[in-house]
């Protein structure tokens, strides 16, 4: 199978070839649900289409900030963790089901 080098131009080619934007919304959301919380939040900046998809409440029902959550460690401090929780709560609306804060470090008594 032919592979595409990871340059900005090539990514554009790959995007067209794979056609991410043509994926059904549910498949795209499945993809987004596998991302860590900080990556999911940053991904909203990629395009208006991604931002719209990422506003779906079903993507924010579980906030995983455990020790194995793959969130960038520098964001696992109470200040950033609470900011990410707040962002998730806004999008989850009333459907937030679980919060795992066990990987969050507290600085100065949190």
């Amino acid at each position, binding site marked *: 199978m032919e592979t595409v080098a990871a340059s900005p131009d090539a990514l554009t080619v790959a995007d067209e070839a794979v056609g991410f934007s043509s994926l059904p919304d549910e498949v795209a959301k499945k993809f987004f649900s596998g991302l860590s919380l900080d990556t999911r939040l940053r991904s909203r900046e990629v395009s208006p289409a991604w931002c719209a998809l990422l506003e779906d409440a079903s993507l924010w029902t579980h906030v995983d900030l455990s020790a194995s959550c793959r969130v960038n460690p520098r964001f696992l401090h109470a200040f950033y963790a609470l900011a990410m929780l707040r962002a998730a*709560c806004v999008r989850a609306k009333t459907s937030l089901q679980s919060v795992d804060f066990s990987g969050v470090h507290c600085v100065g008594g949190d």
Partner: protein
Amino acid sequence: MSGQSLIALCRALPLCRVRCDCVSSYADLDVALPVLRREPPFALLTIGMFCLTGDEQSVLDLASALSVHSALEHLIISEVPLTNSVDALVDAAISAGIKKVGIDKCGLSQTALPALGRLLQSPGFELLGVWNDDVSADHPSLFEGPALPTFFEALRNSTSLKTLKLEDFYLWKDMAVATQLFAVLEVLPALQELSTAGNYTDGTPAVQQAAGECLARLIARSTSLQVLKLSGNELGENGLAPIFGALRNNSSLVELKLWSEHISADFARDVVLPAVRANTCLRKFGGLLVVKSRDAEVAEDPSLQEASWQLAGSKQGCRLKVP
């Protein structure tokens, strides 16, 4: 997070499952107790690790709350003199089904051994950590007295203990007891991590060698041990030689942690490097310093660098070709 922050979080999310760690001092234990009792709005709260610092009354209050709590995974008691409360604490932890217990700087003595034995025999118990912070070798030892054989028997019968941390209490001052302890550890089927950090030998060659031989037998005979932490044991070359001898044929240990063990360049070349070359599973080890000259110039030795490269190669799933 503190008890206050945890309460704020749970009140904000009353219908949400919340899991987090909590650190509480005796000053805000009264705030944390409703949390531990899982009173509303804390019914859906799971506490991964709860750390309490305070006085003995706070431990008794905690024990009382624990008896009705069933969602705490790891309990740490820190800097509390557990003179009269260790039995109540341990029995509450057992009834709450806590699988991991750490007792930090609480000055445990032999009177705590029956309680620790009960803890080890509770179903599914996984982690016991005791950091005693004994200030001198004259401090009353944990591992002495009439309850010791019963404790060792409880330890021997533990089929679920994965991690044992016995730190800072001069383990090597009574070599007969240390030998008994390690004879038990060798046969524990689930033990994956052992730390004896901060148990200084007295620096004499005989004690260093005897300590090293205890550890070497454990490395040679345990089929489950993956992590061995020996920081601050001052084993010297006399104690390290049997350990690296045992490492040659070991096929389970992944991490060996030492700290500021000074060795000669000859020892690095003749003992450390051959062991690391022969070993096929060790991925991480450190803490060896090579003393090159009489004025104690400390530097990385080429033999140790090669040992590091060997380990780096093994992390990639290959072994380096050494001429």
